[in-house]
């Protein structure tokens, strides 16, 4: 009973804080948003340590997974962020020579994530939990590679249709999607350092079930809420049938325009 209380306080409550923090980011009030960020930060830190504080809980394996993949994720996202804002964009934040460094960080992050599957050495974050392969690693990696392959291949095609200034983007998406798919096939055919190819193949097929179930669930939610919103929106008068704005509405519009004119130098 006492252990359950600790698990609730040190694992589930922090996760609740992260969700609450996400919700608070949609509030217009900036102070509330800041409080949300602080709560989210505290939630993530406490959740990240739960594999040490409450190791007896089966869910603590997810916390161990989060900590072990964090370096790869940070390298990938910081790398892409640096490469993006060191490029030829009007809002450049880094000098152009940082662009290759950013791209290298992305490649290193991705390589580190892959190395965790193929190698078992002390200097690479471990995918083990309680003496065997972390069950959540066997969910994360197949889902990630499958989602990368599917989204990037479809994205490359759609981006190519849109047109201008993105032929390079389309090629890059195809290349990255194709590479992920090859890695997936390689893992299905060749044994990893701790998992057999057959074990991985089963995990990938389960990951496909997860991915399709996830998208179907989100799709149905959008459909049901879209239906509700459509019901309210269709009752509203069309834009060309609206009465002209009164003095109060004009004053309010002028105030909003005034607030959004100008901008600081770095914008």
């Amino acid at each position, binding site marked *: 009973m006492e252990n359950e209380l600790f698990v609730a306080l040190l694992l*589930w409550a922090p*996760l609740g804080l992260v969700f609450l923090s996400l*919700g608070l980011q*949609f509030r217009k009030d900036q102070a509330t948003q800041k409080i949300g960020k602080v709560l989210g930060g505290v939630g993530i830190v406490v959740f990240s340590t739960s594999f040490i504080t409450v190791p007896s809980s089966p*869910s603590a394996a*997810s916390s161990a997974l989060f900590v072990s993949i964090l370096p790869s*994720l940070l390298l*990938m*996202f910081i790398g*892409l962020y640096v490469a*993006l804002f060191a*490029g030829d*964009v009007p809002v450049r934040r880094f000098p152009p020579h940082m662009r290759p460094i950013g791209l290298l960080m992305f490649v290193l992050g991705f390589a580190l994530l892959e190395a965790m599957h193929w190698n078992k050495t002390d200097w690479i974050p471990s995918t083990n939990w309680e003496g065997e392969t972390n069950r*959540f690693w066997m*969910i*994360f990696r197949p*889902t*990630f590679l*499958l*989602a990368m392959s*599917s*989204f*990037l291949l479809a994205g490359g*095609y*759609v*981006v190519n*249709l*849109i047109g*201008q*200034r*993105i032929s390079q*983007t389309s090629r890059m*998406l195809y290349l*990255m999607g194709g590479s992920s*798919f090859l890695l*997936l*096939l390689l893992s*299905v055919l060749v044994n990893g350092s701790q998992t057999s190819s057959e074990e991985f193949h089963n995990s*990938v*097929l*389960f990951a*496909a*079930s*997860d*991915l*399709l*179930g*996830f*998208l*179907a*669930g*989100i799709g*149905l*939610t959008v459909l*049901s*809420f879209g239906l*509700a*919103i459509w*019901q*309210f929106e269709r009752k509203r008068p069309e834009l060309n049938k609206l009465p002209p704005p009164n003095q109060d509405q004009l004053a309010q519009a002028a105030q909003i325009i005034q607030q959004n004119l100008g901008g600081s130098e770095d914008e």
Partner: protein
Amino acid sequence: MSKRIGPRHLIFAGLLFLLPTMVLVLLSGNSSYDTELGLTRFLNAFLTSYTIASVFFVVNMFQYSKSRKEPTAPWVSMVYAAVLGIFVTFLLTSQGGLLMEENGSQRAQILYNIIHFIVTSMAILTAVGVMVLLSFVNLESKDESDL
């Protein structure tokens, strides 16, 4: 010049999306994959994402009701989501009882579903994040593309 995206293009994009899964299914041959467990995983992922996304949308409907002056909007959408959720859950669980995986109790299964959802979401969001950032990183400058 940008082309118009028609239904044919969307179908082709959908097929490209499903291509890796289809190849992996074809490769599975005589593997030990448990189809029943795969279906259970699909249904659990479906119900968990539906429930969590619905909660998220309901919270946002309060914001919608305030900005569009429609006080009944959150309640109507809640009824829609609940009715549809109950109907789908009934439909899915009436065939083979509860959607249990390797967990001992219903409570353990629900908690596992939540963690499973978080891990799956993290993997999908990472992939989508990489896709979006990679797209912008490779955007050509206006002068270059005009050449």
